[in-house]
C-alpha cells in the first residue's frame, strides 16, 4: 500500500523516489511509539521514514487532503545491512539485520504488518543476490483490505468484507431459499391476499352498511336484515376457508425450506477445513446448526407470512379509512410514524440482547460439556463444589441476559401500547364531535373506529415480530458465516489426474503457522522414496504432527511445497490424495455405529471377509470376537467402552481397508503399555509393507525398523541418516537416544 504523499515525503527528505522498488507501511518507532512508518528500498539503500499522517484542509478550499509530517528519516546502505530477518515477539515483530556477527534492530511493528515486511525482506534479498527483477514471484496482496470501506478482511484468504454486507441483503438472501418453491409461495400469497380482503370487508359490511343502509330509514337495503346477515356470514366463511387453505400450503412449504437450510449448513461444515473447527468451539457449532436454523424457521413460519399479511392489511385499512373520512384518517397517519420509530429502536435493542443471550448460552453449553468430559479429573481432585460454583456463575450471566431482555419487553411494550391508546381516544373524541355536528354518519364513525382497532392490530403485531426479526437476522448472520466460509484447503482448479500414485514424497522449504507470527515449521525439507520408511523424531511441539497434517493437506503450507511423485499436492484432487494417505494417529475417533461400520468407514462396500481380514491384520480380531455382539458391537458416544489400545487397533484396521500408498503413523503407540504397543507395532509392521511410511514418534523403540531417520527441532530438520550413521555422528539423535536409553535403564533398575 503506497500513497502519493508518502513519495512526496520521501522526496522532500532527499530520497531518490524514482529509484524505489518496493515500499511498505508499518506502525511503530523503535521506542515502541505509535507512528506511520514507511520503509522503502532501492538498489542501494533501505530508507525508513518516521512520521504521522494527518488529514488537513486545503487553504481557501473545503477540500481535504492527506499530509505526512516527517519526524525522522533513517538510511541504511544495503551493502552494510547484511542479512535481514523478521523476528516474532508476542504482539509485535522486529526486523533485525546481522552483519559480520553484529546484530542490529532495524524496525519494530505490530503483527498485522509482518507479511508486508517479510516481502520487503525478500526484495532486499533478491537485490543483494543481484536478481534482475527483484520483485519476481512476489505477489502484492492489496486484497487484504476492503476496497470499499478500507477495513481489514477478517479472513486473510477470503476477500469478503462482512462490514459492507447489510441486514436487508441478509434478509433478501434468506428469501432466495424460497426460489425452489415458487408455486407454493405464490399460492400462499394469493390466499393471504384474499384473507386480507375478507378482513377489510368485515367492518364495511358489518358496521357501516348495517347501520347506514339497513337500519337507516332511507338506506339502500332498509330492513333487509336477513340478506345482510347472510352476506356477513358468507364473508366470514370465505375468510375461514382461505385461512385454512393458506395454513395447509404453508405447512407443506416451510419445513422443506428449513430442511434445505439445515442440509446446506451441514454440507458447508463438511466442506470446511480443519482450521475452522479448531477455531470454533463445539458448543457454538452445535448451536449454529440447531438453534439458528430453528430461529430462522420460526421467523419464516410464524413471522414473515404474518408480516406480509399485516402489511397488506395495514395498507388496505388505511386506504378504506381515507375513503371513509380523510380528516380522521390524517390524525391516524400522524401517530403511525412515532409508533414506527419506537418499534425500530426496540428492534435494535432486542437484537443486542439476543446476541448476548446466544453467546452466553453457548458458553454455558461449553461449560457443561467441559464438565461432563472432565468428570474423572473433577472427582479425582474433589472439585465438584467448585465446578458447581463455576456453573452457577455462568448461569447467573445467562439469567442476567434473559432478565435484561425481559425487562425491556415488559417496560417498553406497555409504554408503546399506552401511546397508541391515547391516539385512539383522541380519534374517538374528534369523530364523536363530527357525528354530533352531522359531518359524518354514525355508521361511518363506528366503521372507522372498527378499522382503527384493526389498524393497531398489525402495529402491535410488528412489536412482537420485531423480536423474531432480530433473532432471525442474528441467526442468519451466523448461518451465512458458515455457508460463506471458504475452505482454506481448496480443490485444485486444474487438477492433475493420475491413475495411481507411487508414493515419492518431497517436502521442500515448507513454512507453516497456525497462529499469526508463530511459525511451527520454518523452512522444513525432507524426502522419502516410494516404498521406503522414514522415522521422524523430535521433542513435543517441534512440528512433527504439523508435518503429517500438511502432507495429508488438512492444512496448506504458508510457503514452500510438498510433492508426491513430483506433483504438487495442491494440484491433486483432494479425494485422490486422501484416499492414498492413511493416517494412524494418537487421537482415535470412532463414530457412532458398529465396529464393522467403523472398520469399513473408508470403503463402505468392503465385504465381511475383508473386514475380518483387516481386523486380523490389525491384531484386533481376537478382542472383537470376545465382545458380546462381536463385530456388531456399537461403539462411539454411548456405545461399548473400549480401551485405548483396542480403539487404536480398530483404527489401524480402518486404515488397512483403505489400502493407502502412503502411511503416516503419528505417535500411534504413544499412549499404550508395552504389551499393547508390541501388538500394535506388529500390526503396523504388516501394514507398512510396500508403502511409503512416515513414522512420527518420540519413543525411539518404535522406530527401530525404519529405513532412515530425521531429527526435527524448532520446525527444521537438523539431522538425517540411518540409525547407525546418526549414532556415529554423535549429534542430536545420539543425544536423544542416549537419554531414552538411560531412562529405560533406570526403569529396569526399579
Amino acid at each position: 500500500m503506497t500513497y502519493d504523499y508518502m513519495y512526496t515525503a520521501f522526496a522532500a527528505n532527499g530520497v531518490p523516489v524514482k529509484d524505489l522498488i518496493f515500499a511498505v507501511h508499518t506502525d511503530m518507532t523503535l521506542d515502541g511509539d505509535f507512528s506511520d512508518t514507511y520503509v522503502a528500498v532501492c538498489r542501494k539503500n533501505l530508507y525508513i521514514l518516521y512520521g504521522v499522517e494527518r488529514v488537513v484542509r486545503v487553504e481557501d478550499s473545503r477540500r481535504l487532503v492527506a499530509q505526512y509530517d516527517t519526524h525522522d528519516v533513517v538510511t541504511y546502505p544495503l551493502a552494510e545491512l547484511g542479512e535481514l530477518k523478521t523476528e516474532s515477539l508476542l504482539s509485535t515483530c522486529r526486523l533485525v539485520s546481522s552483519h559480520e556477527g553484529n546484530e542490529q534492530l532495524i524496525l519494530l511493528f505490530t503483527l498485522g504488518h509482518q507479511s508486508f515486511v517479510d516481502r520487503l525482506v525478500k526484495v532486499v534479498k533478491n537485490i543483494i543476490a543481484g536478481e534482475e527483477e527483484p520483485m519476481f514471484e512476489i505477489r502484492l496482496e492489496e486484497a487484504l483490505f476492503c476496497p470499499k470501506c478500507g477495513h481489514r478482511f477478517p479472513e486473510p484468504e477470503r476477500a469478503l468484507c462482512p462490514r459492507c454486507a447489510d441486514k436487508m441483503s441478509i434478509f433478501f438472501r434468506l428469501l432466495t431459499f424460497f426460489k425452489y418453491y415458487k408455486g407454493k409461495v405464490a399460492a400462499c400469497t394469493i390466499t393471504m391476499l384474499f384473507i386480507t380482503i375478507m378482513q377489510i370487508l368485515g367492518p364495511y359490511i358489518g358496521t357501516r352498511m348495517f347501520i347506514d343502509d339497513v337500519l337507516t330509514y332511507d338506506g339502500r337495503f332498509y330492513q333487509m336484515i336477513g340478506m345482510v346477515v347472510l352476506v356477513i356470514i358468507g364473508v366470514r366463511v370465505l375468510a375461514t376457508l382461505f385461512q385454512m387453505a393458506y395454513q395447509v400450503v404453508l405447512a407443506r412449504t416451510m419445513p422443506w425450506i428449513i430442511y434445505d437450510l439445515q442440509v446446506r449448513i451441514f454440507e458447508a461444515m463438511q466442506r470446511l477445513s480443519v482450521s475452522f473447527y479448531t477455531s470454533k468451539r463445539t458448543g457454538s457449532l452445535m448451536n449454529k446448526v440447531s438453534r439458528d436454523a430453528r430461529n430462522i424457521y420460526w421467523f419464516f413460519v410464524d413471522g414473515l407470512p404474518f408480516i406480509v399479511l399485516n402489511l397488506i392489511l395495514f395498507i388496505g385499512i388505511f386506504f378504506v379509512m381515507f375513503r371513509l373520512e380523510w380528516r380522521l384518517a390524517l390524525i391516524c397517519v400522524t401517530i403511525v410514524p412515532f409508533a414506527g420509530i419506537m418499534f425500530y429502536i426496540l428492534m435494535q435493542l432486542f437484537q443486542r440482547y439476543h446476541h448476548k443471550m446466544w453467546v452466553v448460552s453457548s458458553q454455558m453449553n461449553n461449560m457443561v460439556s467441559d464438565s461432563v468430559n472432565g468428570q474423572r479429573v473433577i472427582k479425582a481432585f474433589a472439585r465438584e463444589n467448585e465446578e458447581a460454583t463455576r456453573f452457577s456463575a455462568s448461569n447467573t450471566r445467562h439469567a442476567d441476559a434473559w432478565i435484561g431482555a425481559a425487562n425491556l419487553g415488559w417496560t417498553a411494550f406497555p409504554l408503546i401500547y399506552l401511546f397508541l391508546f391515547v391516539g385512539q381516544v383522541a380519534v374517538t373524541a374528534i369523530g364523536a364531535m363530527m357525528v354530533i355536528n352531522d359531518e359524518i354518519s354514525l355508521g361511518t364513525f363506528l366503521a372507522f373506529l372498527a378499522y382503527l382497532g384493526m389498524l393497531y392490530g398489525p402495529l402491535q403485531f410488528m412489536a412482537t415480530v420485531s423480536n423474531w426479526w432480530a433473532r432471525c437476522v442474528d441467526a442468519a448472520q451466523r448461518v451465512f458465516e458458515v455457508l460463506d466460509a471458504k475452505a482454506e484447503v481448496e480443490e485444485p482448479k486444474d487438477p492433475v489426474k493420475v491413475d495411481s500414485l507411487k508414493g515419492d514424497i518431497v517436502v521442500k522449504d515448507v513454512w507453516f503457522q497456525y497462529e499469526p507470527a508463530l511459525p511451527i515449521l520454518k523452512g522444513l525439507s525432507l524426502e522419502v522414496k516410494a516404498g521406503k520408511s522414514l522415522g521422524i523424531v523430535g521433542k513435543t511441539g517441534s512440528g512433527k504432527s504439523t508435518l503429517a497434517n500438511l502432507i495429508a493437506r488438512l492444512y496448506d503450507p504458508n510457503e514452500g511445497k510438498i510433492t508426491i511423485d513430483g506433483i504438487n499436492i495442491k494440484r491433486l484432487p483432494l479425494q485422490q490424495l486422501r484416499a492414498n494417505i492413511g493416517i494412524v494417529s494418537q487421537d482415535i475417533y470412532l463414530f457412532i455405529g458398529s465396529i464393522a461400520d467403523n472398520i469399513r468407514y473408508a470403503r463402505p462396500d468392503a465385504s465381511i471377509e475383508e473386514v475380518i481380514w483387516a481386523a486380523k491384520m490389525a491384531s484386533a480380531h481376537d478382542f472383537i470376537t470376545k465382545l458380546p455382539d462381536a463385530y456388531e458391537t456399537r461403539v462411539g458416544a454411548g456405545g461399548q467402552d473400549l480401551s485405548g489400545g483396542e480403539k487404536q487397533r480398530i483404527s489401524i484396521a480402518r486404515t488397512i481397508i483403505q489400502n493407502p500408498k502412503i502411511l503416516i503413523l503419528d505417535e500411534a503407540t504413544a499412549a499404550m503399555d508395552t504389551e499393547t504397543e508390541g501388538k500394535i507395532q506388529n500390526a503396523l509392521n504388516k501394514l507398512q509393507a510396500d508403502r511409503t511410511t512416515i513414522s512420527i514418534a518420540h519413543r525411539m523403540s518404535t522406530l527401530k525398523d525404519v529405513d532412515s531417520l530425521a531429527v526435527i527441532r524448532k520446525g527444521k530438520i537438523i539431522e538425517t541418516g540411518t540409525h547407525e550413521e546418526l549414532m556415529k555422528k554423535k549429534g542430536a539423535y545420539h543425544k536423544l537416544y542416549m537419554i531414552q536409553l538411560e531412562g529405560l535403564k533406570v526403569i529396569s533398575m526399579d
Partner: protein
Amino acid sequence: MDTFDLGILEIKEAEFYSDSGGFAGLKYKGEDHAHVILRRIMPLRHPFEYISVADHDNKEIGILKNVDDLPSSQREIVKNELDNRYYSPEVLDVVSVQDKLGYVYLELRLKNKKGVEYKKNCAIKDVSRNIRMLSDTSVIIFDVDGNRYIVEDVKRLSRQSLRKLDAYLF
C-alpha cells in the same frame, strides 16, 4: 519447594544493559549474556513481576521477581523491552462497533505505554474467544492479526463506550 531452586535472579549480581544494536543484554554473576529474551510468566495479571530471562539460545538464565527492584536505568531497559514485546495499547474509548456476519469491527481510541493517543480500526473474529474478561473489570481484545488491546478498567470507559462493548463482555 524448599529444596527446589526456582532460579530467582539475585538483583545485586544482575545488570541489564542496552547494546549498540538496540538489544537488551544481562551481565549476571560474571557472565555477559547479549541479546536476552524477556518473557512475562504472568503476562496478564502480573506484567512486571516474575519475568523469565533467557539467553540468545532460549535457555533460561533466571527469573526476575520484580522489575521495580532494579535501579531506575535498568528498570527502563527491561520495561521497554517488555512493552515492545507485549505491545498492548490501552483502550480509552470505543468509538464504534459493528457486528457483521459474525465479525466485529471496532474503532478504538488507544493509548500506548508512552502515553501517545491514536485511533485504530480492527476486525475481530470469533468474539467469544477474542474479547475476554481478564478480571471483573479488565478486558483483553485480540484482533485478526493477533494484536492485543487492553481495557484496564471497564468502569473507566465512557457510558457510550461501555454500552457498545457490553454485548461482548462475558
